[in-house]
């Protein structure tokens, strides 16, 4: 898999979540995603961006257009230097929230993506990566 283009956005305020959604939509449209696929990846990005802001204190979002020999896709990497997640399995469970959300963010983003990876170290931060193929 090769990365053909890459772009990075800072996420510090709730207004930035809107900018992330718009940037993701633009990339998805440019890649030729259908409307449903666009909506899924934009919605997943919104959930992860809000999580990162609320629980990780903000961070960066990397938007990558990736390619393998058969198809292209959009990979989004959310990285924060927040407190980290002690129990990832619990955090992925629907309905579990340590804050005021609905507890759908991580699990929902996973369901809306083709590939999902999460790495978190308590005291260091969290990195969530999702990929949606065209």
């Amino acid at each position, binding site marked *: 898999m090769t990365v053909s283009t890459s772009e990075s956005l800072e996420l510090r305020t709730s207004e930035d979540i809107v900018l992330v959604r718009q940037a993701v939509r633009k990339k998805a449209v440019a890649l030729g995603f259908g409307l*449903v696929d666009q*909506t899924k990846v934009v*919605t997943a990005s919104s959930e992860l961006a809000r999580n990162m802001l609320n629980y990780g204190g903000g961070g960066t979002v990397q938007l990558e257009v990736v390619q393998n020999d058969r198809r292209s896709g959009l990979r989004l990497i959310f990285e924060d230097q927040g407190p980290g997640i002690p129990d990832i399995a619990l955090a992925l469970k629907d309905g579990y929230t340590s804050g005021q959300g609905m507890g759908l963010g991580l699990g929902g983003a996973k369901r809306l993506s083709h590939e999902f990876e999460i790495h978190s170290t308590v005291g260091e931060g969290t990195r969530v990566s999702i990929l949606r193929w065209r």
Partner: protein
Amino acid sequence: MERIPILKMGEFLLVTIQVDMHDRLALTLQDDLTSQIVKHHAKGVLIDISTLEMVDSFIGRMLGSIAGMARLLDAETVVVGMQPSVAITLVELGLSMQGIRTALDVEKGMAALKVAVLGTREDADDGIDL
């Protein structure tokens, strides 16, 4: 401060969400709507989301909160015009929007509100002309 306009139409309040709302704007709308329901003694709230290209769990929760608060204030809420791609995504996300009445478009939403609000009254025939 940026606000989403709320229109009054007889006993109903109408909101058309046309911008990609940031979280604070969504919360402001929630506050504005509840105070307008009380101020105008509104019996129904119609929220048109036909131009919304995305509803995430935050906006979904906000719509549910509005419906719940409105119910406590004796008003019905109908959410209209959800795009099919948004509906598909919401279900996959895990948000079933239970407790929220929906209609396909503004016209059908208005009809549903009239039935819900006026249908329970004896003077239902004197319904509002729109």
